[in-house]
């Protein structure tokens, strides 16, 4: 079974900086208060680079890329 990557957010840590939506608009939108709404579908390999960049640049380190 090939590993599937998904993006999750630790909403307790998140402070709505919005960097994730900026860097990974393919899968992250913001709600009316600026908090991320994340598409829960597995991330295809072509988009993994964008996902990793969003994770690395979150000022609160609240984004997590899972591989189950």
């Amino acid at each position, binding site marked *: 079974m090939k590993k599937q990557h998904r993006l999750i957010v*630790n*909403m307790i840590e998140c402070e709505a900086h919005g960097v994730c939506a900026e860097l990974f608009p393919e899968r992250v939108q913001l*709600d*009316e208060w*600026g*908090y991320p709404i994340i598409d829960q579908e597995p991330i295809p390999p072509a988009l993994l680079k964008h996902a990793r960049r969003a994770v690395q640049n979150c000022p609160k380190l609240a984004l997590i890329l899972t591989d189950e």
Partner: protein
Amino acid sequence: MPRVGPEGLPRLLAGYRPDGPIGLQDHVAQYGPPPWRGGHRHGGPLIDAVEASGLRGRGGASFPTGRKMRTVAQHRGRSVVVVNGSEGEALSAKDRLLLTSLPHLVLDGAALAAEAVGADEIVVAVDRASRRAQASVHRAIEARRAAQVGGALVRGVALPSRYVAGEETALVNFVNGGAAKPTFTPPRPFERGVNGRPTLIQNAETLAHVALIARYGPDWFRQLGTPDEPGSTLLTIAGAVEHGIVCEVALGTTIGAAVTAAGGATGTLSAFLVGGYYGSWLPADEAWDVPLLNATLRAHGASLGTGVLYAFPVGHCGLVAAAQVADYLAGETAGQCGPCVYGLRAIADAMASIAAGQQVAAMVERLHRLFDEVRGRGACNYPDGVIRFVETALRTFGAEVERHAAQRRCLLAPPPAMPIPVFDGRWQ
């Protein structure tokens, strides 16, 4: 061989004394001595019995108790048992009644569960506003220590009176010295809980059932209820009924029969709130014949929750009542997750506007958008429960929504005040 259990009802409440808490001697005379059977590394015989009984948690989530016990037993190292007596659900009074009047039944269940899962420590968490329950639990712990009942060390903690303080990760965080607020998962408490150890958290009533299953066996437990949802359950019945009470019924009893057990309704009812503030509104005529089972309630968009039935009288505005409660529930956020903090406030404000007959159509539309936007986005499930409360209120009082839209105000009598607890300001 298990002892022969009592036939019919009451079970848990058989030892209830109106004149005060039952003492240790009377407790043993009433229910029999706790049948210590020893645990072992991957769970003692009690876990088999609880699994066979089909008992599900009575704290709201209805999770299979035996499975939860086995999961904790399978983790390495000594574990901890936490008795969840927080009862953050404002309408529920059944755990408080058990802890106040029948503390030894709950503590027996905790001690037997500790033995089965390999725990050497038991923490009994009780809402700090429930002074009588606190006092009764402390006296019972002392009496058991003096009589050397059970092997695990038992201590009590007083929890902040907040709705989410009883959420499992919040409870663990508080016992570990933090605020009574939910934490990010994983880890779940069964992996890493109190002092980093595997932790079994069970609702007080659930453990009281465990104490009886240990004595009388799973077949006895299954003499009441249905094959999928066996046993008895405690209900708190409140609102427009003759006698607001806590009573014990067989699972599968209809809502109507439960109301009759509370002396009947004080008049014609328009709706029931089933499961408490974390539950669902149902029209009274639709609800009356529905058996109290998750299987049947689910078909009506409801669940048993903590076993609360609140009867709402006709002639009063359910939207005004729901708006008041929604405002309280929005304030009960732990204040950690943006969608919960801002989303629940926006939902409560939109509901207040509908209750007042202002911009009704637009606010109904906004609410449905907010439900979809906020649902599932908290670190815990708290916002989802509040959404269910408001969503089912809109549906159940749908005719009122139409009238508010047409009249631009409410023409019904103000509702009877639903209980809203006062918070003392401290999470620590």
